């Protein structure tokens, strides 16, 4: 079934200070038309086709609900390692070098990512080469070749990826923060995986994971670019039509509850860095339980970047180098996070200022209606710009699908503009005010001792 999706590109009237009416006053909204077709193949694979002939390119994205959220301590890293193995060939092209050479010869730019909610494989190729590229991807996804030699080699690559990340102090800090926040469930928020699991996993265990999650009724295919709906339908059917439907991995089942959180848990990490880095985190809204809260949190994050929001006052000549407030929501996990980068010696002053800012934000976001509306417009603009880009749109669709459903993409504008001040206050009450908080301090010298951080924040916020 197909439709042309129309979403308004912008709004109309404005009157601004001192400048009189702006020229776009009373002009009608501009609409962006997305020729978006959604189909479900007989095997349950959802296929979205988006013709766009701006360039002789086709972008393909195949997403599978198999990120870290479906893992536990014993298999954290399977999704990520398997994502790597897809590029090691298929039953049809078992030689890894030959598989790579064929993709290289097509000039296809390709990659894959593993996230909390999904694993996403994608390529962009010239339209004349896309059929063959899609065939290679489809073969590897449905019938991968998990040879031991390839696996041993690729697990070294993933360990190299661990090392790469762990040589970044920001990653080390984040991992510790999430450990404090999520306890033994931290693996669900760690798509990179566990080093020990990756070291020891066998090909047989990966095959089992593949058999469980890599089923068409648990996947989304998006084809965008220089193709017609008829061509896209034929491509999807030919390359994915014989993929056998199997039992649904039941990802919609209620997620396992997170362990109880100990309020005020802190870690101090000494590291040879130039600034003092302080991070605070709270458990945030999830897309499954509180989609309104997730959107309200994202909007509040956006507001804190506006020049006149109180959060910006943390940065300046006598303050922090940088300060961010961010809310990230996955299907079953959510995090509210404050990050501060502070010149040594100013830690206490900045924390005292932060305490006052947080107190105001806990009371309702510390924002006015104009700031909220501007944040909505900005977020919607980003949504539209990504929608108009033939390479970005498939990723955007996969993101909405992974977190919730395709309907989330379709209804995004309504949901966004339905968020009002009351929704922001509900967010603040539920996720900030009086809720357990954890913190990590990283500094070259221990300028802030363990436990002192909370004392500083609590004292100021009373």
């Amino acid at each position, binding site marked *: 079934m197909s439709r042309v999706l129309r979403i308004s590109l*912008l709004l109309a009237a404005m009157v601004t200070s001192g400048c009189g009416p702006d020229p776009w006053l009373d002009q009608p909204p501009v609409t962006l038309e997305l020729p978006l077709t959604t189909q479900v193949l007989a095997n349950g694979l959802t296929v979205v086709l988006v013709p766009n*002939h701006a360039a002789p390119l086709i972008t393909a994205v195949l997403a599978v609900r198999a990120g870290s959220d479906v893992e536990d301590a014993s298999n954290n890293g399977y999704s990520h390692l398997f994502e790597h193995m897809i590029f090691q060939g298929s039953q049809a092209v078992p030689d890894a070098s030959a598989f790579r050479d064929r993709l290289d010869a097509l000039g296809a730019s390709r990659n894959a990512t593993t996230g909390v909610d999904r694993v996403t494989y994608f390529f962009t190729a010239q339209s004349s080469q896309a059929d063959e590229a899609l065939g290679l991807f489809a073969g590897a996804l449905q019938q991968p070749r998990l040879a031991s030699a390839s696996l041993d080699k690729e697990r070294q690559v993933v360990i190299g990826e661990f090392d790469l990340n762990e040589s970044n102090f920001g990653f080390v800090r984040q991992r510790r923060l999430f450990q404090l926040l999520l306890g033994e469930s931290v693996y669900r928020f760690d798509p990179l995986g566990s080093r020990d699991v990756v070291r020891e996993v066998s090909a047989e265990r990966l095959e089992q994971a593949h058999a469980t999650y890599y089923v068409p009724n648990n996947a989304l295919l998006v084809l965008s670019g220089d193709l017609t709906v008829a061509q896209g339908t034929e491509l999807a059917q030919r390359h994915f039509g014989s993929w056998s439907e199997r039992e649904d991995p039941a990802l919609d089942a209620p997620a396992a509850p997170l362990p109880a959180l100990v309020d005020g848990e802190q870690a101090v990490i000494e590291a040879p860095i130039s*600034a003092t880095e302080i991070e605070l985190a709270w458990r945030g809204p999830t897309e499954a339980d509180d989609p309104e809260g997730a959107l309200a949190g994202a909007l509040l994050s956006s507001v804190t970047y506006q020049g006149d929001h109180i959060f910006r006052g943390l940065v300046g000549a006598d303050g922090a*180098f940088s300060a961010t407030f961010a809310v990230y929501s996955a299907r079953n996990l959510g995090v509210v996070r404050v990050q501060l980068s502070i010149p040594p010696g100013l830690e206490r002053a900045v924390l005292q200022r932060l305490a006052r800012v947080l107190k105001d934000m806990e009371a309702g976001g510390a924002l006015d209606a104009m700031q909220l509306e501007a944040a909505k417009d900005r977020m919607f603009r980003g949504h539209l710009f990504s929608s108009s880009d033939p390479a970005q749109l498939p990723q955007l669709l996969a993101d909405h699908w992974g977190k919730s459903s395709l309907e989330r993409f379709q209804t995004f504008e309504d949901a966004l503009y339905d968020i009002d001040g009351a929704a922001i206050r509900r967010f603040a009450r539920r996720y900030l005010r009086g809720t357990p908080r954890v913190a990590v301090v990283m500094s070259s010298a221990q300028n802030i001792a363990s436990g002192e951080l909370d004392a500083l924040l609590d004292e100021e916020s009373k």
Partner: protein
Amino acid sequence: MKMLRPRALAVRRSGARGQRVSTVLWCLLALACGDPEPPTVRLGAMPTCPDLSSGCLNVGAATLDVGGVRVIYKRTPGQPLAALRMLFDNGTRGERQMWAERLALTMVQIAGPSTRTPSSWQGELDKLGAVVAFTPGADYATLSGTVAAPRAIDLWRLLREALRNPPQSQFQLDHFARLEQRNVVVRGDQPQLAAQDEAWSLLMQRTPADETASLAELSTVRAGDVSQAFGTLLDKPRITVVVVGDVLLESVRAEVEQLVGALPTMSANPFPAPAASQAGDVPGLAATAVLPYPDAPTWHIAGYFRGPPADSEDHAALRLGLAILDNRLYARIRDERGLAYTVGARPYFYRETVGYLWLSTNAPGEALPIMQTTLAELRVLAPTNSELTSARQTVRTQIFEASDTPAGLCATLADWQLTVGDRTRIDTFLTQLDTLTTARVHESLTKFLRNGAVVAAGGGSELAESQLQALLPP
């Protein structure tokens, strides 16, 4: 005066909601029924663009002189978005001037004109549905905007207002200078970025004292410096405007004239035009360094090679050569041996092309000799025909991928105009991809994979500086 947002929202929402609801219903119906025979779809506002399909990027583009300012204009009928770029060919200048210009344009982007508050500026952009960005560059600075095509001229007017009434707040200046300072300071904490920065400094023959002095200059920039920077940036011969989108030429011309007419004529810009190509000025440059980061579990190696001027015939050959090198390094070090997560080679498209090599590995004793052998082979033997064929496809896909939206095409045309001096050379370049031989690619690699700098930063396994020196031929 207060902004009347509720009214604006009412207009927007009433105009869009009905259409959207019907779309959602159709989508749900499709999911429920699994209709295997979708009807033919009208392509709506996404028309076929013949330019890229014909393998060319410049078809239909024009260059105009509007009051002494170069304007590149390309109409893309029916495209929903339009892109604007204003490029400042700000040339070589001292560190203080560089920071002042950078902060000046950052303030325009984020804080807007002195006639508005920052929140009013951002509010206007949000209401217009526009994105404005500032990008500093090695050769030139860019102020860019993207917006719905029917609103392109409105966005231009906002930018014009900001440039004619530049922001002057010392508070904002301190805020943005602080963020810049942090960017510089914190990069040194990360071995991967430290390796890149140090290799770049060595290539450019800068010393640690130069870098310290640069940071010190940043903290001395005052509002007066920023005001002066606007004066030198807005020197008409140094400005290029690029517009890509469904925008009428007459409107673009009129708007640029309005901006240009208000600019003073500068008798002499105190900051000289970009120097001529420096390629080959440092023969035998073979600089290396090892930066220990004892806590890091892996090594990050970054190397830069001086390449040809971007307007040289060698440019396309080197670009293909680096694509071949990239494939070989990835295949041999990562895909065949699992010795690295990330490894590769790519060009930087500056007025003097720079070749960039990178490798992050916890096994430098095994990976670096493979990199050395791979570089040495390409200096001695021509690549194969199949490698060249793959490289052509890869580079062509990269160019098209970067140019398939108005914003992307705007950036591509601007890059080629400001880097090569002629936007039409992108099509010459695309044609060259098919005509260059393996011998020509080999010649370029032999010539340019020499003068360079390689730095390793990190920890873990043993790594000796001699292993880096081996990457650079005597």
